Structure formats: C-alpha cells, structure tokens
C-alpha cells in the first residue's frame, strides 16, 4: 500500500497544487494532471492508488473518463469526485455509474483524507483479489481434461463410486485423479476444493 499514488485531476492548477500539498501531509504519493485526457495518455493500469477529480471539467468530463477507463481496462482505480455547490446530482449519477465516492465543496480536510485512505484500501483489496484470481486461473489451467472432468463431478457432490460409473473408470483411477487435482491446486480438503472451484467460476 505504500506505493499507492493519489492522482489528482483538476483543470484549476492552483486547486490541484493545493490538494497535493494537503494530501502529501499524510505522506501519500501525489501526481497532478490538469485534464482527464492528460491522465489517460499516461495511464498505467498496474499502478495502485485512487483518483481525485472535479466533476466540472472542460474537455473530457469526469464521468466520461470513468467510462473510458472501464471500457479500456475493465478495472479502474476508485474515483472520488469533488463537487461544487449545485452539482450533487451529477455526483450521484457518477456514483451510480461506479464512482467510489464524492465529497462536496467546501469539504472538511479530514473527511477527504479519510475517503482517500478508504479508496486506496479498496483498490489494494481489489488488486489482491485480482491477483489471487489470476493465480487460481493458472492452477486450474494446469489440470488435464480428465482431471477437470473428475473435479467438476466432485464439486457437483458425486461420490467416487458415482464418478467411476459416470466416466466408465475404476474407482481406483478416480481416486488417483482426485489426489492429483488436490495436489495441483494446493487444496487441503474437499471443502477447499469446492471453494476454489466456485471462486474460479465466479472470476
């Protein structure tokens, strides 16, 4: 989490600089951009952190940026919108469209910093889960087609004997496949196996 960066996008440079000064006071890394396009141009999905941006921006709007990120990368860092007087509706729409949070101007500094911390934690959690998911995928990919069949039936709740009958194998062979699957997936118990299989399906 220490390498998380807060990306500030605000067309008003003075405001962007002031946010940087404020956010750096809690020892977070900050980068500022004066337009959504400028941010997109250098965006690296691998970098952890969150976005803080003004709802009202000339050119590419905050909402549009959010859509582009989602369309291009599937995942995007959490976005905190800063809204002015009278822009609340816009912020609500942004949140409905998947923004993480919004703060109304004038805002309490502690409030903003708390939300930023929460957004960063959320991002880290998302990234952890994503990491696990891709590891899991790699493990599943190492199974042979037969092992895959056996696994599916095990998770489906069938006994070894039932599986042997269904696949026209001996109970012994099924036993061997099953042990192999457990080993390959680093599963310690049947319930582990079931959980992992479900997780993989969900991803």
């Amino acid at each position, binding site marked *: 989490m220490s390498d998380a960066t807060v990306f500030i996008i605000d067309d008003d440079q*003075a*405001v962007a600089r*002031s*946010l940087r000064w*404020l956010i750096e006071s809690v020892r977070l890394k900050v980068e500022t951009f004066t337009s959504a396009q400028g941010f997109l141009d250098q965006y690296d999905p691998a970098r952890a952190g969150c976005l803080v941006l003004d709802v009202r921006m000339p050119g590419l709007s905050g909402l549009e940026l959010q859509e582009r990120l989602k369309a291009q990368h599937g995942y995007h860092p959490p976005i905190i919108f800063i809204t002015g007087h*009278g822009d609340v509706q816009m912020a609500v729409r942004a949140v409905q469209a998947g923004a993480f949070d919004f703060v109304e101007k004038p805002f309490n500094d502690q409030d903003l910093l708390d939300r930023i911390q929460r957004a960063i934690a959320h991002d880290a959690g998302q990234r952890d889960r994503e990491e696990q998911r891709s590891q899991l995928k790699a493990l599943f990919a190492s199974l042979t087609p037969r092992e895959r069949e056996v696994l599916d039936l095990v998770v489906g709740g069938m006994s070894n004997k039932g599986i042997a009958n269904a696949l026209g194998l001996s109970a012994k062979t099924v036993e061997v496949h099953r042990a192999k699957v457990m080993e390959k997936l680093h599963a310690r118990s049947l319930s582990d196996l079931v959980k992992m299989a479900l997780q993989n399906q969900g991803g």
Partner: protein
Amino acid sequence: MSEWSGTVWLGAVALVLLLTLGAIILVYLLMRLREVRQRLSDREAEHEVVLDRLQENENRLRAVFESEPECVKLQSADGTVLEINPAGLALIGAEQPEDIIGRKIFVIVAPEYRDYYRENMRRVFAGESVVYEFKAITLKGRSCWMESHAVPLRDARGNIHALLGITRDITEHKWAEEQARRHQSELTRVARLSTMGEMATGIAHELNQPLAAIANFARGCLRRLRGGEVTCAELIVPLEEICQQADRAGEVIRHVRDFVRKRVARMSAVDINLVVRSAVRLTELESRQQYAHVGLDLAPQQPRVWADSIMIEQVVSNLIRNSIEAMAEARSPHREVTVKTRQLGEDAVEVEVSDLGPGIDGALIDQVFDQFFTTKPDGVGMGLSISRSIVESHGGQLRAESRPGGGAVFRFTLRAIGRTLADNERRYSLHH
C-alpha cells in the same frame, strides 16, 4: 368846368378804384381764408383718423395682451415689472396688478436661481433673445418650474428700454422628465441585479476555486505544524500560494463589480411571443434533463410591449425553470409547463406560466417573492425576487397563484404600446 370840380371828379374816380381794389383784395383774402380753413379742417379730420387707428391698434394689442393664455410681462433693466397680463398675474399668484407691478421680479424667483435669472436679463438688454428655465416660488408660496422666452423691446431711436417676456409653467413636464429619469435608473438597477442573478453561479464557481485552494494550503500547513515535522522554510511556498489565491479572489470580485456597473436597460418595442420563445430555448437543457415539456399557447398578433427584451426573457425563463424544478422535485408524473400570452384590454399584454407540479402552499404564496427564500437544497432564492423587480420596473405586476387541482400559476402584465405611448411621444416631440 372849374379846376376844382375836375379835381373832385378825379378824386372820386380814385376812391372808387381804391374801394374796388380793396373789395377785390378782401374777397380774395376771404377766399384764401376759407381755403385755409378748409385745409385745416381736412388735416384735422385726417389726424383724427390716424388717432382712431392708433387707438384701435392699441386696443387690439391690449386685448391680445389681456387674453393671452401665457404670462406676458414687461420688465425694466433692473428687474422692475412694468406691465403684466392677467394670465401672468395668475401664474405668479397675484390678486391684482399692484401686487407685482412696480416690484422686482426676483421676489418670485427661487433664491438659487436668481443669479442665473439676472444673467439672462443682462443678455436681453444687450440685445439677445433668450430662453431659460428657472424654479419659481409664487406669491402664494407654491413652488414650480417656469420657462421664459425673453426678447428686447426698442424705442423709436432703437434703444432697448424694456424686456418682453413670455413665461409658462413647465412643472408637469419637468415632473414627467424626472419620472422618466427615475424609471430609467430603476430599470438600470434591476438590469444589474438580474445580470448578477444570471452570473451568480458563475461567480460562485470563480470565487470557490481560490477559496478552496486557500483552505487546502492552510490546512496542509496546520497538519504539518501540528505534527511538528515541518521547517519554517518549507512553509514559505504554500503561504505564498495562499497570498496569491487571496489576490485572485479579490480580482474576481473587482471584475464582477465592473461588469455589474455597466449593464443598463435597453428598452425597445418588443414582440412578447419572440421573447417567450427565446426564453424557452434557454431552458431546453433543463427540460430535457428533467423530462419536462414546455408547451406554448401564444396569442397571435398582439400589440408590442415597451421592454428590455433580455430582462423579460430572464423573467420567463426563471418561471419556467422554477416549474421544471418544482415538478422534478415532487416527481410529478406529467411534467408539463405551459406558457401563455394574451392581450388584456386595450393596453396590456399578459404572460402566464403554469405547471402541473405541487403548487405553492397558500401560506407561502407571498413569501416566495422574498429575497433568499428558497426550499431547494441548492437554490439561492433570488429568481422570483429579481423577476418581480424586473416586471415592476417595467410598470407591470408579477403574481403567483396555486391552482386547486395542484400546480402553480405565475402571471405578469406588461404595458402594450398603444395610444398612451403615442400620446407621450407626441407630447415630448412638442418640446424638442
């Protein structure tokens, strides 16, 4: 015959001759005398005719003088009133000629205008014809405005011996002028106000930026100071930033002030239906966003109104916006706004904006026009207050009503350009 008798005869002849001559001379003289008498009496008759004519002329002039509806008077160089007609007596509040004849005219000139009056008199006695306005206080104490046309009067030798002045009361005209001026300045004030309303959101944003920056810099400084982990040198840059942003905010305010000062009312003959259409265009975005429809019911061929079209457009768009907002807020199923125009009698045009929203609580119906009265989380509460002053400064009225079946109705009137205005224009052109 004796010598003596011859002498007597001669003497007699001589006497007869003498007598005859004398008679002839006498007759001649008598005839001359008659002639001269005749001539004299002819002259006299002629003279009488001239005198009669003179008298006739004088009578005619006097009749004109006496019956002239405006004040006519003669003054000497020192301001003494020599003659004045009855209209003049009435104008200056005198009961009889003695009240003013022989007195100085300055008794009716307001003190602050006496020097100016004297200067004009001086010019007349120097041979000029002048026109001047001054404030007067009549002998009865009524204060009023007067306008005088004064010319020099010359005697047979061409010397100026008096001032002939024709004076009239222009108080009413002056008052109308004053009213017009006040009206204009009120309109201008409202124009400023409404521009402010228009700009309020923009200004708020412009000011919020530097204020937000200042707050962020200042809080960043406080946090570091409280944490005890900052050096004085590190605080210089953010403090400088704070100063700059404060200047920036001041600059915004100065701009606003300049801008607001410059907006003046621009009156013209306006087709109200066109104004309504452009007001609807102004609110198109909101109506689309809030799924509202703005319907028009415009009377064809109505008289034009005398108005600042931009301001009236603002009133109408304010009302439409309020309707849309009210219906959106109440989640009304049928979001319909209707703008109606119609002619009211000879000299007024009415604009009505109605909606199918929740209407206005009877207890609040007057309050909604108060400045800063708002029931909206992000409302300013200026819309109706500004709209009402705009309409009133145009000489009309803006009223609200709640319909029994729900929905609000706002109506305002504007004076149509009809006979009244034409009259005014004629009257003014007489003076210019």
